[in-house]
Structures are given as C-alpha cells and as structure tokens.
C-alpha cells in the first residue's frame, strides 16, 4: 500500500514534468509566431519608410535637381517591390493580409508610376517643368491610400501579435501552474517518503528492541534457572553431608553402649556360671535363656544393623563428597585409561576365568579423569562381579563418537539384569537379582551421579542370562558446569 503510494507519487511527478515540457514546447512555438509577426511589422515599416523616402527624394529632386536625391529615389523605388514581395511571402498563411497586399500592390504601382512620371518629366523638361509638375502633383491622395492600406496591414499584425502574446502568456501561466503542481507533488512525495522511511525505521528499531529484550530475558531466565538448579544441588549436597554426619553421632552411642552392655553381660554370665555350679536351684530357665541367648542375640543384631547403617551413611557421605569435588576437565587418552582399568583388574579377571577385551581405538574425550575412571572401573568391576557361573566370562569395552558425544560401552556375557530392574539398579542401596555378592548398592548410583556431573548419562541394556551392556554417553568436550 505504501509502495503503491510512493509509485503514484513519482508517476504524477513524471506526468507533471511531461506536461511542463509540452507547455514549454507550445510556448516556444508561440514565440516563433510572435517574432514572425514582428518580422512582418518590420517589413510593413520598411515599406512605409521607403514610400516616405521615395516621396521626399522626389520632392528634393524636383526642387533641387540633386543627383543625391536621384540615387535615394532609385534605391527606395527598388526596395519597395522587394518589401511587398517579402510581405506576401511572410503572410502567405494569412488570407486577410494577402487580400490587403492585393489591394496594396495596384495602389503602390499607381503611386510609383505617378512619381516616376513626374521624375521623368523633371529630367526631360528642366527646372521649370519640374517645379510645375511639383505644384500640380496629384500623388498626395494616392500616398494616403497606400499609407492607409499599410496601416490596416499593420493593425492586422498588431491584432495577431496581441493574440499570440496573450496565448503565450497563457502558456506561461499554465507552465507556472504546472510548475507549482510539480512542486506540490514533490513536497508531498518527499514528505510521504520521509514518513515511510521514519515508519520503517521505527518498526525496525522496535523489533530490534523487542529482540534484544527477549534475548536479555532469555539469558536472565537461563541464568536464574541455573542459579536455582545450582542452589538446589548445593542444598542437596549440604543436606546429605549434614544428615550423614549427624546420623553418625547417635550411631557412635548405639554401638558404644552396645559394647558396654556386652561388657556388662560378661560378669553377669560369670555370675550365672557360678550360680549354676554352686546353687543350681537359683537359676531358672528364663534367667538362663535371657543371659545365654537373648542378650547376646540382641547385642549381635544391634551391632550388625548399626554397622550396616554406618556403611550406608558412609556411602551417602561418599556420594555427597564426590558431588562436592571440583570437576577438572582435561584431554584424556582413552586407550591408555581403559587399558589401565583392565590391567588393574587383571588378577581378579583371570581368577574368575574371564577376559577383558578393549576394542581400540577408543575415541578420546575432554572430561574429568577421576570421575570417568571411577565410572568405567565401576562398570567393569560389576561385569566381573556378576558373571554367569559356568560360562567363560568375556567383557568387551568399546567406544564410538556420535556428533558432539562420545559413547563408551561395557558389555559382558554374565548373568544379566531383569529389564524391570534397569532403572532401579541406579538407585542408591538398590540391587538386583540373587544377592550373592558383597556390596551396598552404591556403585551404579555413584556411576550415574558421576555421569550426570560430567554432563552425560548412563543407560543399561540387558535381559536375564543374556549379559548386560552399559552405555556411558558423554559430551566429547566438557568444560565444567555453567557457572553463574
């Protein structure tokens, strides 16, 4: 719409300009005609002049018989027909003037004939005759007639002139009007263009501001979210740390006083022994059972449970401590790192009658050495731990790069994991399958927490008796957490 407006503006400017040019051309044409009129008038004037000179030269000659007058007469006499011819030629388009010329010609011819005759008579008859001829001169009315005709012609030209001049003035006026229109259009187009430009600029500025605001908001939102996450994470870490510490305090008491109980039970047992030996009647079955069975059993359970609780608390503590450790990424040679893990487990692996195959080359990665080492060695240890009895174990470690990620895979042909436990095994203190191996259910929880810390994930694919495949997917280059 705005474009159409601009186009229309420029088109009308063009039309106005064209109109001005046309008017200019027409005016030029009028100019030519005006000067034509002036030319005709000058010829009429010339004719009048020569007629006048003809008459005065003749008078002079008749009175003074001077050769000078004679020559002037001859010159004007020759010029008059030429002037008339010129007039006829110039006014060929004007029938009125042609008619006037037709009247003029015989009148001039008559006049000049009369004058010529008087000149000839003067030449032939001498002074006296000439003076007589001058006295009886009848050329005056003829001269008046000629002059009158010339005046009519002049008037006619004046009429044309005034017509043409007024026409030209009209054209000039029209020209100025068009010029004014042009100016107006120009001003309008200019104003319109400026308006359009301003509007576009404003819109641009507005959308740019909007974008910047969005961008700022986005950054701010991300920052806020990151801060929130960081805070929540810190809170959890602190929570785990404090809880595990504060839980240990009562445990120290429980275990400590259990031992005190145990110690106190000893003299009681001795007393019972003595009583049985010296006064068996004093010892009832209840007392015997309490001292010999119930108390030691209770103490045993309390101690066992408390010790287990201590191990669990220590596991949480370890995880929280791991979470608080600063991640320091570095370029890692994975062939060396994985071979190192395989070598460190060599003894246990051969004992279990298994083998570890490292499929080299493994893609390299930039990440935290300790964390990745712990992840992989945990997975390989698990693979060694849960082999299928009676089947030669084979643990394969391979890796591949996918875009900006590296994936390391630890596969075994061991006893496998029930698919319903695939998520559960990553939970703290949760284990799967037959509980025939030592452990607290911490390893995989630790693996997953570490993988998250490195910006990656760990997943499991397995079925019972089908072996298991653990995949660790990490960013190929990890540069720590996004710090606020």
């Amino acid at each position, binding site marked *: 719409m705005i474009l159409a407006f601009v186009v229309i503006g420029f088109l009308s400017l063009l039309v106005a300009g064209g109109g001005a040019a046309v008017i200019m051309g027409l005016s030029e044409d009028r100019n030519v005609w005006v000067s034509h009129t002036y030319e005709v008038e000058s010829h009429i004037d010339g004719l009048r002049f020569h007629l006048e000179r003809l008459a005065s030269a003749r008078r002079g000659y008749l009175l003074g018989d001077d050769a000078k007058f004679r020559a002037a007469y001859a010159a004007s006499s020759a010029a008059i027909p030429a002037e008339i011819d010129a007039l006829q030629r110039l006014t060929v388009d004007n029938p009125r003037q042609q008619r006037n010329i037709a009247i003029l010609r015989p009148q001039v011819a008559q006049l000049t004939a009369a004058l010529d005759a008087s000149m000839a008579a003067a030449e032939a008859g001498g002074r006296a005759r000439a003076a007589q001829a001058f006295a009886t001169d009848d050329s005056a009315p003829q001269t008046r007639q000629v002059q009158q005709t010339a005046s009519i012609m002049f008037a006619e030209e004046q009429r044309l002139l005034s017509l043409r001049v007024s026409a030209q003035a009209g054209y000039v006026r029209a020209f100025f009007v068009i010029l004014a229109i042009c100016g107006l259009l120009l001003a309008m187009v200019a104003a319109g263009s400026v308006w359009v430009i301003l509007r576009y600029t404003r819109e641009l500025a507005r959308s740019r501001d909007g974008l910047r605001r969005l961008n700022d908001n986005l950054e701010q939102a991300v920052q806020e979210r990151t801060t929130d996450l960081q805070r929540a994470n810190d809170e959890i870490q602190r929570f785990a740390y404090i809880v595990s510490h*504060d839980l240990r305090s009562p445990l*120290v*008491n429980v*275990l*400590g006083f259990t*031992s*005190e109980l145990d110690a106190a039970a000893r003299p009681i047992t001795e007393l019972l022994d003595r009583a049985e030996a010296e006064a068996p009647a004093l010892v009832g079955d209840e007392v015997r059972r309490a001292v010999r069975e119930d108390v030691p059993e209770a103490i045993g359970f309390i101690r066992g449970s408390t*010790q287990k609780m*201590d191990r669990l608390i220590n596991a949480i503590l370890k995880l929280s*401590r791991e979470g608080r450790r600063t991640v320091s990424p570095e370029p890692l040679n994975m062939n060396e790192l994985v071979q190192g893990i395989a070598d460190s487990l060599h003894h246990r692996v051969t004992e279990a009658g298994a083998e570890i195959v490292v499929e080299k080359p493994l893609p390299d990665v930039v990440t935290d050495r300790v964390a990745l080492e712990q992840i992989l060695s945990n997975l390989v240890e698990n693979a060694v731990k849960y082999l299928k009895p009676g089947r030669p174990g084979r643990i394969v470690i391979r890796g591949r790069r996918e875009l900006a990620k590296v994936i390391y895979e630890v596969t075994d042909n061991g006893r496998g994991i029930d698919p319903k436990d695939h998520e559960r095994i990553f939970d703290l203190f949760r284990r799967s399958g037959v509980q025939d191996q030592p452990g607290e259910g911490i390893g995989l929880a630790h693996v997953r927490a570490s993988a998250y810390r490195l910006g990656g994930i760990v997943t499991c694919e397995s079925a019972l008796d089908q072996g298991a495949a653990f995949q660790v997917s990490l960013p190929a280059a990890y540069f720590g957490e996004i710090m606020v």
Partner: protein
Amino acid sequence: MTHEQPVTILMIEDDEGHARLIEKNIRRAGISNKIHHFVDGTTALSFLFDHPEGPAKNGPGLVLLDLNLPDMSGTDILTKIKADAGLKRTPVVVLTTTDDKVEIQRCYDLGCNVYITKPVNYENFADAIRQLGLFLSVIQVPEIDGLG
C-alpha cells in the same frame, strides 16, 4: 604429690553419650585426671579463659574438642585457644565424627595436636581413646616441668 598441678582435662562435647563413652575409656586407660565436661562452646570458652580453675588462670590443661557443637563450630574454639598467648601451648585433641580430609587438614593448620575420628566400630574407638590416654600420660610431664 610430686606434681603440684595435675593436668585438667576439658571435654567439650555436646553429646552426653559420647562424653560418657570417652570418659569411661579414659578411665579404663588408667587416666585419673579431673575431667571437666562442657556441652556447649560458650561455657567451655568462659571456663578456658576466665574460670579460676581454668587453664588460662590455673594451667595446665588438655582440651578434648568435638567439632559439631550447638552454639559454635569447634574450629572457632580451636582458633581462639591457639590465638591466645596463655593458652596456645595447651594441647588440643579434636575428637569428632567428621573424617573429611579438608576438615582434618584445617584443624591441623589451626594448630590442633591430635585429630581422632570417632569410629562407629567401638573397639577402634576404645583403642583410640586408650592411645589418647597414653598420649596424655606422656604430655603430662613436660607441661608440668614447663610450669614448675
């Protein structure tokens, strides 16, 4: 008495059970020195610095310090003891559940003499306390000589 002033033991420990266990084991180790027990940092500090029987006025002393106290951190007390000209030679044994390396490092940096983690395993704990008892009997002599 050949020793004019036996070492006074200041136990700063908010957990009554722990305090009792520590005391029992110290006694079992054959240490019969007087034990003052404080359950918070404020009273412990006022005893340390201002009490007529405290080590500042009436040395020598030995401090058994738990780090997790209700009103302040044990490291604050440690810092104050080691910053005081009169108390800085008083041995401080940190006895706490924290086995965080950084925390242990920090205590040694602040001038703690022995750091003992309270193990849940009671036998280890008793052993540690008994060894502490041996330690106490060793440090008794130079402290007394220093004062005498």
